[in-house]
């Protein structure tokens, strides 16, 4: 970015600085889980994702359960099955992808403690490009259902804290 005196190189110089603004990032909105019922050791967490440049959610972890994985509820001829999502969940560029009851969801297996309304669940989401993002999901009391209450309205926007650890401005890839 030093000798950008002539027009063409100037444009190229500007081009090389653009990746900083287009660093891969994922917007995480409205992460939530239901409180667990007695004897319930597994729980689902739902949220909405959007990646302007396109990405893929490839893994999930949580310190609050023995295991965490990506699942999809698949319904066929009235039979419901839950399946792993081995390739991860694709996030086409600019599209909103919602993990919701009856569809994709994060499954926590072997909760260390029951989920109580008002608490938060800590999740680490791993993205192919964006890296690891920590998410805090709010726990709602039993009776909540995303498809009925939420849809597009953000109830008070408490998509709690998240650290975007992947904003790597330092190493601009000049070969792009």
């Amino acid at each position: 970015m030093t000798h950008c005196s002539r027009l063409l190189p100037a444009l190229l110089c500007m081009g090389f600085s653009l990746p900083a603004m287009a660093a891969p990032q994922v917007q995480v909105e409205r992460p939530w889980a239901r409180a667990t019922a007695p004897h319930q050791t597994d729980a689902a967490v739902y949220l909405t994702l959007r990646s302007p440049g396109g990405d893929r959610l490839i893994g999930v972890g949580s310190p609050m359960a023995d295991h965490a994985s990506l699942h999809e509820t698949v319904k066929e001829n009235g039979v419901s099955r839950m399946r792993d999502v081995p390739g991860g969940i694709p996030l086409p560029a600019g599209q909103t992808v919602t993990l919701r009851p009856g569809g994709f969801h994060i499954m926590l297996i072997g909760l260390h403690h029951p989920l109580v309304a008002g608490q938060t669940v800590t999740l680490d989401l791993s993205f192919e490009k964006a890296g690891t993002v920590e998410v805090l999901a709010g726990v709602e009391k039993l009776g909540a259902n995303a498809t009925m209450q939420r849809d597009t309205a953000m109830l008070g926007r408490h998509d709690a804290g998240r650290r975007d650890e992947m904003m790597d401005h330092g190493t601009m890839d000049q070969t792009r």
Partner: protein
Amino acid sequence: MRRSVVLAVLTIAILLGGLAVVFGPDLLSRQGTARIGGPFTLSDGGGHVVTDQTFRGRWMLVYFGYTHCPDVCPTTLTTLTQALDALGQEHAAHVAPVFITVDPERDTPEVVRDYVHAFDPRITGLSGTAAQVADAERAYRVYAARHPTKDGGYEMDHSSVIYVMGPDGDFVTVLGDDSKPQDIATKLRGLGA
């Protein structure tokens, strides 16, 4: 000669077809011969034996699931809870949501009772021996099978629909597990609940 045979065959065929059209539907829906539903003997968490007869006089909403189910079952139980609320107290008193486990090994009657009551105490949770549960599944033509998971445990693949049974115990209709509570309430009110 051949033509008259053909005509005779055609006539008989048309007559038989006509009879099928006229009488067929009756044969298929004989009163008292439920093709879905029927007798079952299970246990609730309070140590009581519960059968299909327990619910006579009320509309049953029967749903098969299991407590290790993180997504579909809590969602459907929530829906049933909200459908009861949408019905209002008077009509809801005529409706009995019944949750039957497909996983009797992990879901004892007490476990199922505690689980469903966290959603709504008006939901009855039932379990039993493996044979009793299998009988109930067979009566409702429910598919249920274990699917092993990475952590060494298992999930259950299972039929996930809500069976609506009338006060006489006969099958009325099925509702999808993604039915909206208001629609379920409207449907039940329309049926006379």
